[in-house]
């Protein structure tokens, strides 16, 4: 069998295996689009799960207006019927659940005031209060007198419901929605819970499209109809759609630019075909590796991974040009290519060590993709392309020569001077301007229309629960309630100090079993007393029997049960957790210190938590980057000697500082993702430096490096226009970094014992 047939055969088998694996696995994978969902695992994984499962994340709200109240009711009912897959949260359901709970809770709950009266044996005031309730014109709940003739549970429920109703003060409940008036116009407010994860783009995108389409159809029917919506679903879908569009748009454009470039340089279909096969193979290998290692591939990871195109095409250009020069030249090129792959893989391996899923996926994609591209260039190119079979465009050669000649005017001393001066000045400027931010709110540009929708819904529905809450941990459900009770005086104190408007805790609804038992004993004492006997006689009811089955969490209404959480057993995860919802909280360090003194409670702010995690990841990436660069420099010292390695270090520093300085001068604040860009700039700049330091003609190296840099800049330059600030920052960093690197890399040939040939 011929060698070329064998190599092509092996290559084809590999591609087919990847294709078969992907066709089997891809339909089963759910693509994620949440930045925060991709954040690192830590001791507090259960907190992240809690936030992910928190019902607020799955809630959507829809306000309909513009029509008379009766027509709004028709439209709202029609919309609810059209979407049975949504779990509609209705006032009627709340009412029924409250009724059911109240029936169950009769005799088990009482207000603090009633407890005090019971403890002080002030039975007369209890019976007086019961008479007041019995004789007032307010309706009485059904069937509770037998178990709770003093109506202590009714008073307790009214007390609890007061806090609950504050949430919807301006709204009137109808059966299936809330209604109200805003600027004299009636509106209805529908609320639903999603059965799907809003970050699961596969399911969320069609659902959102369906909802919007139905609303548009209803608007055709009722032209005056206006609507506003809110919910994570709409933001997540917008982010996913933008990421997908950008990925295909930028990927497509950069591919197109590469095709044009290849056609211009080689004027032949064969290199074009080889480059496309290289990119395709690299992409296929990268995707296969990601799907192999990760259950839920992240869309943003693939936006970052479009960088593969830039690096892989770099190898392709070097391979194509070297093959043209014949086997000897190709063999001379290989050490540089291998060293370049080694240094780039080292850089991406640093990403793999970081606890950030997106970056892990980028790393896996790039490691597999670049290895595939390297193997293709090394083994397939020599058998696929005969030497001297193509003509290189004279203009391309001319451009490369011009740049090389420009730098050749500098002698070694001048080159050092230039590197030194620019390196110091760019470093000083960087130190002057540098400003990092880890606030995740700045990572994503919220869509202004969606923001308006959100703000309008908040205006209509009043103040909601805060996005931060308290978490109470315990070993058992009973201990959880006890601990919430221990926390209560602190909450009351904060309320009095104006640091907290109100809160909702599970223990507001559910007393501990010990407290329920005590209440029963105290009630029996009331019934046996003279006051109690007289009251029961006047009412004509028998003495209630002591209750034996206690009220538990399963009796609570759904919306309270959702505040209880049983984390998956793991490192640092408590057995039981309850969430205390806060409204209007402005807790400072003193209050947080008071919380931590308790030892079982903490304030949890998902945004603050995510930002802290990002800050941690940024530090780790910084360390990883430093280690990777240090490792690469050590390899260079070993391979090239101290002097040239020093020059390459200065060259890298200039490229990196320039890239970051431009971002800073344009008003951007540096983020984790700028650092990811830096990592790639280092990888690409090292590539260029290694090739210029190799035993190849500088003009040949410049041609390949220049061509690959142009393609990379086209790809990354477009990312700089992304709507997502982090992607834009990432793109701009790489764009500027590569530009500076490609323009200054030939100066490296003027340093040390020159191995490269000037012309």
């Amino acid at each position, binding site marked *: 069998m011929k060698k070329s047939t064998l190599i092509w055969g092996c290559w084809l088998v590999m591609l087919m295996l990847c294709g078969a694996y992907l066709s089997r696995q891809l339909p089963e994978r759910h693509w994620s689009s949440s930045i925060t969902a991709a954040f690192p695992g830590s001791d507090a994984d259960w907190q992240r799960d809690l936030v992910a499962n928190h019902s607020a994340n799955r809630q959507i709200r829809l306000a309909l207006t513009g029509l008379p109240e009766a027509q709004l009711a028709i439209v709202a009912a029609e919309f609810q019927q059209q979407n049975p897959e949504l779990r509609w949260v209705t006032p009627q359901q709340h009412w029924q659940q409250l009724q059911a709970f109240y029936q169950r809770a009769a005799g088990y709950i009482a207000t603090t005031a009633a407890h005090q009266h019971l403890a002080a044996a002030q039975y007369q005031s209890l019976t007086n209060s019961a*008479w007041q309730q019995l004789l007032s014109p307010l309706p009485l709940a059904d069937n509770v007198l037998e178990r709770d003739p003093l109506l202590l549970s009714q008073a307790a429920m009214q007390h609890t419901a007061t806090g609950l109703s504050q949430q919807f003060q301006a709204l009137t409940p109808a059966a299936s929605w809330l209604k109200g008036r805003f600027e004299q116009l009636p509106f209805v407010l529908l609320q639903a819970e999603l059965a799907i994860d809003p970050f699961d783009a596969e399911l969320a995108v069609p659902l959102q499209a369906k909802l919007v389409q139905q609303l548009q159809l209803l608007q055709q029917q009722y032209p005056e109809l206006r609507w506003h919506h809110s919910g994570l679903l709409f933001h997540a879908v917008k982010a996913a759609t933008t990421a997908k569009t950008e990925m295909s748009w930028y990927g497509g454009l950069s591919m197109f630019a590469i095709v044009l470039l290849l056609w211009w340089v080689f004027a032949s279909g064969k290199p074009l075909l080889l480059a496309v096969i290289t990119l395709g193979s690299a992409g296929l290998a990268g995707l296969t590796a990601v799907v192999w290692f990760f259950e839920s591939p992240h869309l943003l990871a693939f936006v970052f991974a479009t960088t593969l195109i830039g690096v892989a095409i770099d190898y392709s250009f070097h391979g194509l040009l070297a093959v043209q020069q014949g086997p000897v030249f190709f063999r001379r090129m290989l050490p540089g290519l291998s060293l370049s792959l080694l240094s780039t893989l080292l850089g991406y391996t640093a990403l793999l060590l970081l606890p950030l899923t997106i970056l892990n996926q980028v790393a896996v994609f790039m490691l597999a993709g670049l290895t595939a591209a390297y193997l293709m260039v090394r083994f397939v190119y020599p058998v696929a392309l005969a030497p001297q079979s193509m003509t290189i465009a004279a203009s391309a050669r001319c451009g490369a020569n011009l740049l090389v000649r420009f730098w050749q005017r500098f002698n070694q001393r001048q080159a050092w001077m230039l590197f030194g001066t620019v390196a110091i000045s760019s470093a000083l400027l960087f130190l002057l301007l540098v400003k990092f931010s880890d606030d995740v709110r700045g990572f994503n540009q919220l869509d202004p229309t969606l923001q308006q929708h959100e703000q309008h819904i908040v205006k209509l529905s009043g103040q909601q629960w805060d996005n931060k809450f308290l978490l109470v941990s315990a070993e058992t459900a009973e201990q959880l309630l006890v601990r919430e009770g221990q926390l209560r005086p602190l909450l009351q104190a904060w309320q009095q100090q104006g640091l907290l408007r109100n809160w909702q805790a599970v223990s507001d609804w559910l007393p501990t079993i010990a407290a329920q038992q005590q209440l029963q004993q105290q009630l029996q004492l009331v019934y046996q007393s003279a006051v109690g006997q007289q009251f029961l006689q006047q009412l004509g009811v028998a003495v209630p029997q002591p209750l034996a089955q206690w009220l538990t969490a399963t009796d609570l209404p759904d919306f309270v049960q959702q505040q209880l959480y049983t984390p998956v057993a793991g490192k640092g995860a408590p057995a039981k957790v309850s969430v205390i919802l806060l409204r209007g909280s402005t807790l400072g360090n003193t209050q947080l210190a008071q919380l931590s003194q308790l030892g079982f409670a903490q304030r949890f702010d998902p945004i603050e938590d995510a930002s802290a995690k990002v800050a941690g990841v940024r530090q780790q990436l910084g360390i990883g980057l430093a280690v990777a660069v240090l490792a690469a420099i050590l390899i260079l010292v070993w391979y090239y000697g101290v002097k040239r390695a020093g020059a390459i270090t200065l060259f890298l520093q200039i490229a990196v500082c320039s890239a970051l300085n431009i971002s800073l001068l344009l008003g951007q604040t540096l983020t984790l993702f700028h650092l990811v860009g830096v990592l790639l700039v280092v990888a690409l700049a090292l590539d260029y430096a290694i090739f210029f330091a190799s035993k190849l003609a500088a003009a040949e190296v410049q041609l390949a490096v220049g061509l690959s840099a142009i393609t990379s800049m086209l790809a990354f330059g477009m990312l700089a226009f992304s709507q997502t600030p982090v992607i834009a920052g990432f793109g701009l960093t790489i764009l500027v970094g590569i530009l500076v690197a490609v323009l200054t890399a030939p100066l490296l040939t003027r340093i040390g014992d020159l191995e490269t040939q000037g012309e």
Partner: protein
Amino acid sequence: MNWRLGLWCWLLASSSFAAAASDTAQSQQTVALQQMAQWQLPQGKLLFSQQKWIRGLQRPLKSQGFLQLEPQSLDWVTEQPVQSAVRLDKQGVQQQLAGTYQLQAGTELIGRLMLAMLQQDQAFLRQYFSLQPLPEQSGECVQLTPLQAPLTNFYRHIVLCGQTSLSRIELTELAGNRSEILLTAASIKAVP
């Protein structure tokens, strides 16, 4: 008669019946409102006596007291068998506890309802109830059946009766409890 003619007759009859039923409901509502409009508007202090039949109790609970009606609020003061006071207004129902009124959650509509019944706020009553005259009961009575939540969660129906002024209110709760409130005319300061 062939089937087409039969179908045509059935459709005609159904639509006529539907139209007639709608007309009847409309005319009953008009009659009920006219009847209520004849009652003189009460103002100031009214004496009341209430009998409340609560499910599970063998005999009704009786109470007496007075209502102090103001344009924006109603004080419901029970004097017998225990002293208690409740204020009803558009905010809801406020129970007097230890000398201060405390608003009870979720009672906005009940507060507005009581005021609307006594002040004959026809717009409110039409919005939340279907109204029907009940001439067979003693005196001229109007039955109010709630149309929408949350009132449908509390009341099965309400009956208002009177000759020249509102003299009896009967509240039948969904839970089966029933209250009969008699307003004594002697204290009503009539407004012409």
